[in-house]
């Protein structure tokens, strides 16, 4: 290649054709949940593609918490999120969910997420103990369905989540020092003013 960029010129020539990508070349997806501040609930932020849960956590940190203050984050395989239907208008999704009788078996924790405004993010409302995710939603309906219309519910088995450990939270302590990432660190105002006073363009 004849590029202005010496690094591009140093790239190896690839002679073989680049074939269409195989399925899962970009891996599966993981849902990312972020706690913006200590004491605030976790909220859904988006997804990352990753080969496993551990790398999903690493990539989530890079993609979603590079810039904004963040207290904690966790990730879960998209396939491990149990999703209710989506309702609209004044129809509460809990009114359309089936009744589920208490199941026998060993219970585990499920994290419950609500969508209370279309277009916004799903927000964590609490944890319930159940055997099945359907049952977890049913229980959530009794515990967390108070006043606002809920349009969509997610139930995630807690043991499928990759949480952030207390030690790892130190990762975000460096954020305030990285001033070069802040708009407010680029104060051109004084320099501009001085320049305008000296110049006679205007």
């Amino acid at each position: 290649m004849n590029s202005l960029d010496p690094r591009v010129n140093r790239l190896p020539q690839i002679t073989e054709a680049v074939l269409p990508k195989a399925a899962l070349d970009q891996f599966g997806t993981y849902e990312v949940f972020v706690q913006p501040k200590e004491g605030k609930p976790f909220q859904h932020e988006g997804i990352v593609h990753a080969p496993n849960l551990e790398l999903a956590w690493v990539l989530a940190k890079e993609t979603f918490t590079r810039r904004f203050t963040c207290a904690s984050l966790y990730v879960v395989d998209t396939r491990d999120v149990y999703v209710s239907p989506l309702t609209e208008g004044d129809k509460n999704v809990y009114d359309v969910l089936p009744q589920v009788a208490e199941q026998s078996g060993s219970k585990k924790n499920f994290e419950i997420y609500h969508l209370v405004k279309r277009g916004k993010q799903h927000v964590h409302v609490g944890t319930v103990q159940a055997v099945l995710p359907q049952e977890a939603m049913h229980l959530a309906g009794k515990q967390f369905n108070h006043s606002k219309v809920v349009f969509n519910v997610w139930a995630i088995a807690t043991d499928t989540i990759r949480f952030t450990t207390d030690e790892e939270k130190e990762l975000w302590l460096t954020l305030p020092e990285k001033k070069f990432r802040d708009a407010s660190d680029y104060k051109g105002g004084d320099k501009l003013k001085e320049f305008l006073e000296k110049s006679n363009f205007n």
Partner: protein
Amino acid sequence: MYGGGNTFEGIKTDNLAQEDPIKLAAFEARIARGEKIEPTDWMPQLYRKQLIRMIEQHAHSEIIGALPEGTWITRAPGFKRKMSLMAKVQDEVGHAQLLYSAAETLGKSREQMIDDLINGKSKYSNIFNYPTFTWADCCFISWLVDAGAIVNQLANAKGSYGPYCRALDRICAEESFHLKYGHHCVIYLASGTAKQRQMFQEALNRWWPPMMHFFGPSDKISAHTEVLMRWKVKMGTNDEMRNQFLDMYVPKIWELGFTIPDPNLKKNESGKWEYTEPDWEEFKRVINGDGPCNKERLEVRRIAEARGKWVREALKTPKMSYVTPLA
């Protein structure tokens, strides 16, 4: 980064007649009420297709847009500028990640999108097919191309598709640093030596025509987009976006004593900017692959894909299966 290409090809509205009229009416009513459309909602085929195309092109523009600026990381003037530029370029690649994800919720796989980029089947913003000769070209991009992108992105953030709007809200928040950083760089060149001033003036001369192309063809010649406006896929016409950009940034460029290479550029009594129509034939040529850097940009992506392949294959596990991401 974003602009241009998506509005270049015309759209066919005749298959709208095949949509269920009751569902279509409910869909349109929801948008008219200002409610967002979410991935599992019913939507017309045309809406899905247009959004995929637009969000995908936006994603490609971010990832290709990282190349002309990325070139200057190794040669940035000073450690501080190097850190800032690295952070900015990392942001742009992050934007691509967010946007690809939003497009995936509509049913197109990331594999397919990357294939289409590399094969030249899907477009990206034409402006990144121009070279960055000097540091000043890089400063032009950071300040003014990003400014143009922000005009588009702020408008699109008020669109109708939930996942795209949420991605754009994040992106816009990060863009504010890009804009301030870029302006800071240009102020330093403007208040520097005669040589520095000349360097930026020359960059401005080179980049002005592609910057005018950035918002897409003039409304007089561009495809009819009424239905896309009604569905809040497109939030303003190309000329409206261009005018907004000129209104916000021409005074800031003039303030620094630079000359914009268009003798007809002025604001008329009604507050609209008048300018020489840019060369739309050149725009078409570049969009269709014949710009100064098209080949290099795609080749760099192609090589990156090929070199990374063994890593991706090594990381694959039999447990994987694909499901459409949630939101």
